């Protein structure tokens, strides 16, 4: 009877007890787990005016930090001191994911996320300042796709930030309107800085080096916004010769190693006053969607414009490059035209143009590719005819276009 009574008491204690199954996440120390819980609560409770401070230290987290409030600031004490490490991430896949406007993030690092480092979707007035995103194992296909990734956003400023090792693009602005990327550093990514389907972007005073491609201005099909009006100026785009390590199928997987600046299917792009050097396929590539190998009729919106139009290249300082193009077709072309020890000219154009829209055999004046860049020449690779008749005739590129106005972001200088 006594034993039964004891058993019964245990049963009661268990039935009414508060014992919880809530457990410490695997792979995190107790201190990191406690830090994560407290940080998650701050993200949950954030409201306009909230400043979430990230203290010094390398903090291991295993779950994405999601923010759904506007008017929030996330602030660390420095990229070398406030480090959020997602090496053991089990739920994400991003590091920090933001659905909100009037958002500022500054002075911290995000490391080793399974997916994108920092993603901001559908926000307005976004400031990213002094943020470093890195995959610490170096360039690997298994790294996350994007380092810093604002998408579908308006009035975006990214400055003094850096990305290392992204398996797609380091700093990637997609489907946005009104963007400045400046004083940033992109290295060891497939694409250093990429502006995609974005309207009005200024990209200046950045360094893109050691990537597969340095700075990309792309338009992808099927998206709700066609991009145009990007200025790329005063950047250093040097030695972007890293072997392409993107998984096949992504837009950047088609970028040859050794690409400096690449314009694909975009329009009203102005490239000036940059130092572009030693990119071994070409310092500047201008191409149409057809060159990516992804074009197919059923999968691409019939209203999509695959051609680069109104591209203005002037006053850049080109040096070196073009001497070791990536890919068999380009290698063959280079050797055939310029010899084993020769090199491509600074500008490589794939030769695709909108044949239905020619005036006296040339695109309308406002839609041309214009190159006024000292002695820089353009190679027309004759892509539509499988590189059969490549030329370096500069006549069609000797033109001028109206210059684009600077991007102005309300409330910021």
């Amino acid at each position: 009877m006594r034993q039964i009574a004891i058993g019964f008491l245990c049963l009661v204690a268990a039935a009414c007890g508060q014992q919880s199954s809530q457990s410490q996440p695997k792979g995190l120390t107790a201190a990191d787990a406690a830090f994560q819980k407290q940080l998650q609560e701050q993200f949950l409770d954030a409201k306009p005016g909230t400043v979430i401070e990230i203290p010094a230290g390398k903090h291991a987290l295993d779950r994405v930090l999601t923010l759904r409030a506007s008017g929030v600031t996330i602030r660390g004490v420095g990229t070398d001191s406030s480090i959020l490490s997602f090496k053991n991430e089990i739920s994400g896949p991003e590091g920090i994911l933001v659905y909100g406007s009037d958002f500022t993030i500054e002075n911290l690092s995000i490391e080793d996320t399974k997916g994108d480092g920092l993603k901001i979707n559908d926000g307005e007035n976004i400031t990213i300042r002094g943020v470093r995103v890195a995959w610490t194992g170096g360039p690997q296909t298994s790294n996350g796709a994007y380092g810093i990734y604002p998408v579908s956003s308006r009035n975006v400023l990214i400055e003094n930030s850096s990305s290392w090792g992204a398996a797609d693009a380091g700093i990637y602005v997609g489907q946005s309107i009104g963007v400045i990327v400046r004083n940033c550093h992109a290295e060891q990514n497939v694409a250093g800085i990429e502006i995609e389907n974005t309207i009005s972007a200024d990209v200046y005073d950045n360094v893109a080096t050691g990537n597969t491609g340095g700075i990309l201005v792309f338009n992808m099909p099927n998206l709700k916004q066609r991009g145009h009006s990007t200025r790329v100026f005063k950047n250093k785009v040097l030695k972007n010769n890293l072997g392409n390590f993107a998984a096949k199928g992504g837009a950047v997987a088609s970028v040859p190693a050794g690409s400096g600046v690449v314009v694909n299917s975009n329009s009203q792009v102005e490239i000036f006053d940059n130092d572009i050097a030693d990119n071994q396929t070409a310092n500047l590539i201008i191409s149409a969607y057809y060159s990516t190998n992804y074009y197919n009729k059923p999968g691409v919106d019939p209203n999509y414009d695959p051609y680069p139009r109104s591209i203005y290249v002037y006053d850049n300082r080109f040096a070196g490059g073009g001497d070791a193009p990536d890919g068999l077709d380009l290698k063959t072309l280079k050797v055939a035209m310029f010899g084993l020890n020769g090199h491509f000219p600074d500008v490589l154009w794939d030769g695709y143009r909108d044949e239905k829209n020619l005036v006296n055999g040339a695109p309308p004046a406002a839609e041309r590719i214009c190159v006024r860049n000292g002695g820089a020449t353009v190679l027309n690779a004759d892509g539509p005819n499988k590189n059969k008749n490549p030329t370096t005739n500069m006549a069609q590129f000797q033109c001028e276009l109206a210059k684009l106005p600077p991007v102005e972001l309300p409330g910021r200088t």
Partner: protein
Amino acid sequence: MMRPQAARRAALYAGVLAMSALAGCTHAPPPVQFFATGRPEHLSDWHVVFRDGGRLALNERVVPYDLNTPLFSDYAHKLRTMWMPAARAATYSATESFEFPVGTIFSKTFYYPRAGGGAAAVSRTSDQSRDFSGQGLDLANVRLIETRLLVRREQGWEALPYVWNADQTDAELARTGDEVALDLVGAAGEREAFTYVVPNQNQCAGCHVTDLKTKSIMPLGPKARYLNRDYRYADGVQNQLAYLQKVGYLAGLPQSPEVPRTANWMDTSQPLEARARAYLEVNCGHCHNPKGAADTTALNFDVASPLDRHLGLCKPPVAAGRGTGDHLFDIVPGRPDDSILPFRMATKETGVMMPEQGRDIVHREGVELIRAWIAAMPGSCGV
């Protein structure tokens, strides 16, 4: 050493005591309590579902329901309920989530049939025949993991995740989520260890905010096309919508031929395409719709999406990263092995897998369904 009769009497006595002691915790249940504000620490504070002896029981006027095709959640079984304040009803919609009155409480309890051999061992099975004890759950046979409440307050819906304690007596609020180590045991005894991830509150919104502009949390399941099916109630089998109308929970239900019905993804008597589309809408459509979080991808799996590039046919990916698996297009007709869609379903690697959250293991039968659907598609992506 007691004589058998004395032992029986003692056991009976203990049983009676235990029942009354348990009743001391749960009592003859007070009515469902709707909290207009705040976040009660315990699931039991709400009195929606509660521990009643060896059962997880439903309180009065708490109506259970099922969906024609449910979201896959690591093979967890789900007990779904709804409750509304007296004299209030939801308003029918043919396409959207019904308009529910302030005070509505949904509960969804995630649980597994026990596989035997420790609390972590749970069964990978779609068989629910041993789960129930009346309208509630038989805790001798199932292990409760979490119960999520979705509560309609004056200012909108709020999602509150509760995690069951080890003794299965109550569940505690877990706003920041939780992780539960489980061992999934298949029919042949094969085991797959995994970490079940309870979402945090912001992750709840990751699915339940289906419109990025309104940013409102919405119920996903209670739509006409998902609810339009039978349920075995205490008083017999009835169509769920008719039952909700009968108990006063639903107003404006049209004649049955007008009510849409989503296919049951497991029902092989239904067309393959209907089953695949149902599966994709339920598992992907909360983000992949023209207003959702994945509206940046040009890939839509909602019921209205046409069967062309919008649904992924020959569509190049936009921001998939290594999620492409080296494939060029989301769906290549006739070629599941060359299609990104089943590739992302067939992995559990964070950063590659889809859906991005709410899944920690591969849904084999779901992958099979989508592969079969793609394999049966005519055409090609030839330029």
